[in-house]
């Protein structure tokens, strides 16, 4: 469909050097906050699901994403303490 209509808009891709997993975490307040929040949530998970990672050792965005992935997987394994209740 896309190639046959008149108003097809090409979208440029970013340059190859846009990928920067070594970007210092201190340069992105948002991901810093995300790590902090996941660390707080992780403390409430069962011990066997906790990562044991010292979050103060996380210095780059790539390292932060590995930590976030590990805790997110643990959260899903844990399955959640509550369940959404359907209306009667």
């Amino acid at each position: 469909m896309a190639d046959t209509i008149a108003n097809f808009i090409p979208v440029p891709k970013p340059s190859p050097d846009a990928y920067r997993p070594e970007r210092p975490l201190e340069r992105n307040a948002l991901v810093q906050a995300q790590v902090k929040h996941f660390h707080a949530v992780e403390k409430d998970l069962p011990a066997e699901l906790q990562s044991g990672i010292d979050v103060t050792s996380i210095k780059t965005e790539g390292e932060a994403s590995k930590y976030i992935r590990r805790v997110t997987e643990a959260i899903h394994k844990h399955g959640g303490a509550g369940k959404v209740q359907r209306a009667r």
Partner: protein
Amino acid sequence: MTLGQQNLKHIVVLMMENRSFDHMLGSLKAADPRINALTGTESNPDTTNEPAKVMPLAAFQSQLDPDPDHHFPAVHKQLYYGTSGPPGPPSMNGFVQSYYDQEKNVSHSRKIMYYFPESKLPVLTTLARNYAVFNGWFSSIPGPTLCNRAFAHYGTSFGQVSMDVFYYNKQYLSIYERLVNAGHSAKVYYFDMASSSLEVVNLLKNQPQLFGSYDQFLQDCKSGALPQYSFVEPNYTDHAADSGAEQIASDQHPDHDVQQGEVFIATVYNAIRKNPDLWKSTALLVVYDEHGGIYDHVHPPACLPDGFSATPDQTGVPGLTFSFDRLGIRVPAILISPWIAKGTVVAGPEDPANGRTFEHASIPATATSFFLGDYSPRSPREEKAETFHNLLSDVMRAEADCPVFGV
């Protein structure tokens, strides 16, 4: 109810990160004078008291590094520099001064005034000019990401103006819980496990069944399995995928690459656009959570107080208690549907007679109003928020009249 509303079955919200209206769409006034964008003469004083004018020199990356400060005290300075502060009107004159505070570099601080020419953002500007662009959509709080995103999920931040937010088991349910409790369907789609979800960590912890991945979103669009309400999160980090492929952050948060965000927006749009049944029954809102410390020229208006207050210790501004009675800085927002006339401009504060003011509480307000009707309890801000489903008309545009992106 219009035909567009009668056909509406799905609302999808894509919330991007940290760019102001003028930074992304400031060029569009030249193409359409109804759009409340830049004239090119706007300026802020730098720390040598020289005017730093807006310039169409915004770069995709490596320009706004470090991340411009957008916590409450910095935004307060951006708004009120040179004035005695609220309740008086903001000057909108402190953006360069605020950015200077971070690096003490005059030349660098002036870049906070830069905006993108239309040609550099073909996705966002095409959507803005082809569907409905809002002249008056504001972030909910003059502060950072997480408290603003909370308004999109709960209709309030429960009194928070910071990034320290845990909102589970509060007096107001999230829009997802409201809908699912009533037998409707709703989901938060985060990009992948390594990017995960931002602002609803406790919701993720307690209700993981409400979450899905971006790959699942694409599959759900293709198979027609999209929930009635979806909230899509971009990729927040540069990281390697399971395959080893490079995943470039697509949230457009400085200093992430803006072009990758364009690709992401286009991919979300195309996923809906290319399923004919989904396309005619879906409204897609593309909106930014807050301005990220970047210049916008429109004064944020006052708003209904939210029933909470933040003390000076919480705002970080000596002597300032914040009553959630004024909005944050304006952000890009575009509503997309084939039931919206090409070139719709939703008037904002520049039109005192007909203008409408939207904020992130408009998101749960719209989903609640459309899918649930009367519902309580909700925050005072959400109860009074403007809703946007009423922008869908009686006329469905032809497929050939609606753009498709090549990604």
